[in-house]
């Protein structure tokens, strides 16, 4: 039964790759990347195993193992997306027990590319203990335990983050919580690293960190062979118990979340707003611009897929405050970074409509009205956010005199970005998570080329915003308020000009390409 599902999963992968050559290219690059990382890890392990001192070897095993588990938990959420080729909901119609479903999902996790790479790397750690044959023998079950823990932990994390077993509102809540955790994860990590490095001797710090981690679920399994090699059998037994308990707890928690998923009613009654509560749709003027504006702004304020792009923005000032201090140039320039992120957010805006774009298309509004509506919706969030961040960073950093220059560069860039994306989003659609799905889900059909197009759009924004960026940069470095005002004027004028041209060109383009965009969206594979 497990073998059947494994075969099915590779058949799906094969079919996808065979139909989409560019995805095959991306897949090959992925394999090459995994192989090179693997080679690097193995050579480091061999190098470390040659050391005479046992302490650094133990520290490397524990720190590396803990990082591996952390990567398995947050990696899918942050970077790779959750692989939903085979998941519990798709297996639900087959007559499997929960235990069988869990066995299948564990097996598919182990046999994916990350699973295989992890297993090989984990087995390679055996080389660390060549000095102590007993430690090698003990290491084998510990490695199996650690790898299984990785796979089960990632399955549990994805079950929780996609909110299996919850209703729609619950899923969105979990998604929002994960977003908040991600916002704070960056500053916390940098803060912790800063505290660590300021404490002096890095080697001793790593050693101490490893000691602590060895007693936690993250590093326990990896600490056992080291303890055996060092002859402290008592702690080795205790840590082994911790490692086994970790896997057991994760397994039970996962089982609980799956069982909840199967018994919870598929759609619980949701809280309804009082009839007549139209939100923005009652405020905006009637017509194509007003309707699109209201819809777009509602999306920016409520849709996790848009919010995900918004929450990255405040990260920049916080990050630069930690790394360079609030007096640094990067902190002062961080509003420009924010503008940079926000201006590119809508480069394939129609993708987020999904096939609901058909209702835009069948209403036959003019392309330029659609463009204006989307720009107004994005700008109602993006422009105030940029201004607020610029003012706050200027006040905190004590460089209010260059505020005008910063604003000029940032607003110039974001307005130019709106103009450029008005054209690009009439040409480009990319596969994105469907509305209501976890914004962290991997989306099939994303290709190498469509990824490269982002950089083309970014380059266009950079070139067109160059006047505002240059004058603004001069103003920020020279601290001349007069230059700052010029920068602000240049930014607003250039931005407004690019928006007008972008709306006209993009609107005309959209009227031509609309049906083709819809056909391409419909052709995207769905999960």
């Amino acid at each position, binding site marked *: 039964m497990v073998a059947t599902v494994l075969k099915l999963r590779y058949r799906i992968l094969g079919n996808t790759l065979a139909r989409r050559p560019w995805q095959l290219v991306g897949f090959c690059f992925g394999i090459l990347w995994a192989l090179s990382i693997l080679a690097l890890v193995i050579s480091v392990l061999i190098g470390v195993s040659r050391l005479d001192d046992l302490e650094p070897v133990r520290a490397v095993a524990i720190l590396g193992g803990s990082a591996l588990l952390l990567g398995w938990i947050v990696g899918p959420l942050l970077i790779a997306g959750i692989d939903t080729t085979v998941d519990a909901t798709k297996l639900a119609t087959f007559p499997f027990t929960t235990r069988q479903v869990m066995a299948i999902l564990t097996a598919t996790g182990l046999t994916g590319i990350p699973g295989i790479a992890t297993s090989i790397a984990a087995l390679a750690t055996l080389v660390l203990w060549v000095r102590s044959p007993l430690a090698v023998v003990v290491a084998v079950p510990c490695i199996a335990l650690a790898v299984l823990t990785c796979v089960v932990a990632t399955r549990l994390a994805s079950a929780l983050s996609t909110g299996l077993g919850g209703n729609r509102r619950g899923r969105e809540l979990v998604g929002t919580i994960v977003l908040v955790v991600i916002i704070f994860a960056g500053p916390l990590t940098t803060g912790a690293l800063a505290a660590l490095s300021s404490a002096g001797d890095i080697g001793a710090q790593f050693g101490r960190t490893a000691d602590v981690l060895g007693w936690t679920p993250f590093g326990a399994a990896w600490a056992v062979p080291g303890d055996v090699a060092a002859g402290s059998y008592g702690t080795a037994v205790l840590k082994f118990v911790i490692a086994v308990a970790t896997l057991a707890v994760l397994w039970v928690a996962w089982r609980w979340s799956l069982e909840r998923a199967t018994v919870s009613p598929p759609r619980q009654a949701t809280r309804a707003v009082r009839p007549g*509560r139209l939100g923005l749709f009652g405020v905006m003027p009637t017509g194509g611009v007003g309707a699109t504006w209201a819809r777009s702004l509602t999306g920016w304020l409520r849709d996790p897929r848009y919010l995900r792009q918004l929450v990255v923005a405040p990260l920049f000032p916080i990050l630069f405050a930690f790394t360079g201090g609030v007096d640094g140039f990067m902190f002062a320039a961080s509003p420009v970074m924010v503008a940079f992120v926000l201006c590119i957010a809508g480069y394939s805006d129609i993708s987020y409509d999904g096939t609901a774009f058909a209702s835009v298309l069948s*209403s036959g509004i003019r392309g330029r009205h659609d463009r204006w509506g989307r720009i107004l919706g994005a700008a109602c969030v993006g422009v105030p956010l940029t201004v607020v961040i610029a003012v706050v960073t200027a006040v905190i950093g004590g460089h209010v005199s260059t505020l005008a220059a910063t604003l000029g560069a940032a607003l110039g860039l974001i307005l130019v970005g709106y103009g450029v994306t008005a054209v690009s989003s009439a040409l480009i659609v990319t596969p994105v998570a469907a509305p209501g799905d976890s914004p962290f889900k991997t989306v099939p059909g994303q290709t190498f080329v469509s990824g490269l197009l982002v950089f083309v759009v970014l380059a266009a924004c950079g070139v067109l915003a160059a006047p505002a960026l240059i004058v603004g940069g001069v103003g920020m470095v020279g601290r001349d308020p007069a230059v700052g005002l010029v920068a602000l004027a240049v930014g607003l004028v250039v931005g407004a000009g690019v928006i007008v041209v972008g709306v006209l060109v993009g609107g005309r383009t959209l009227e031509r390409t609309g049906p083709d965009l819809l056909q391409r969206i419909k052709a995207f594979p769905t999960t």
Partner: protein
Amino acid sequence: MTETPPPPAPAPAAAPALALAGLVKRFDDKVAVAGIDLVVPSGSFYGLVGPNGAGKTTTLSMATGLLRPDAGTAWVHGVDVWADPVAAKMMIGNLADGVRLFDRLTGEQLITYTAMMFSVPREQIAPRVADLLDLMDLRDAAGVIVADYSAGMTKKVALACALVHAPRLLVLDEPFESVDPVSAANIEDVLRSYTATGGTVIVSSHSMDLVQRMCDHVAVIAAGRVLAAGTVDQVRGAQSLQDRFVELVGGRHTSEGPQWLRQS
């Protein structure tokens, strides 16, 4: 396929509600629609029937400006859909099949939004939305987001969106799929009085009984071609529409199903 020159655009005054001439659509190597000509008279209740994969949705998509035809022309009240899409679409109320709605909006917001897209004057929007919610029995669900609707409710709210700007031509792709019989009967009444006052409805459906009861005209489509078209009585002759359809399309086989599926 022989090249026939497309007929000249009919004069707007006497123009049929929908005229299709030589519509062709290929997807890669597969021909989905292989040259369809159809005339839907103004004020008619027109049924479009055909087996799965016959090209009904593809045809309707091309007729409403959602899918660009490889060849052929579509006119709505004399306006070429692909030459002047904005003018044509203002006259069409479209219920497309197999596409999402903006389902993060509440039902009431979605209908209001659609009315705004068609530039319905602000003071008329609220009364129209209220009427449509009553008509579709969606009053209680007005404040619930459409993603939480059942399949039938979603269909009904999409139908309300198609009606809100009082179009001259309604193009409904599978409008009664998973709609409960009471709602369906209510909607049927409304559509009937709509055609009686000069509006035109074209529906695609799998239900022959429904088409025979509701429609005055019917076209049978299979493998991307029109097999028969005209008034329902012309097409069915002395038979029921169901029997005539099977006769035209073929593929009916009588059997008791495979042995292993039989329970006794």
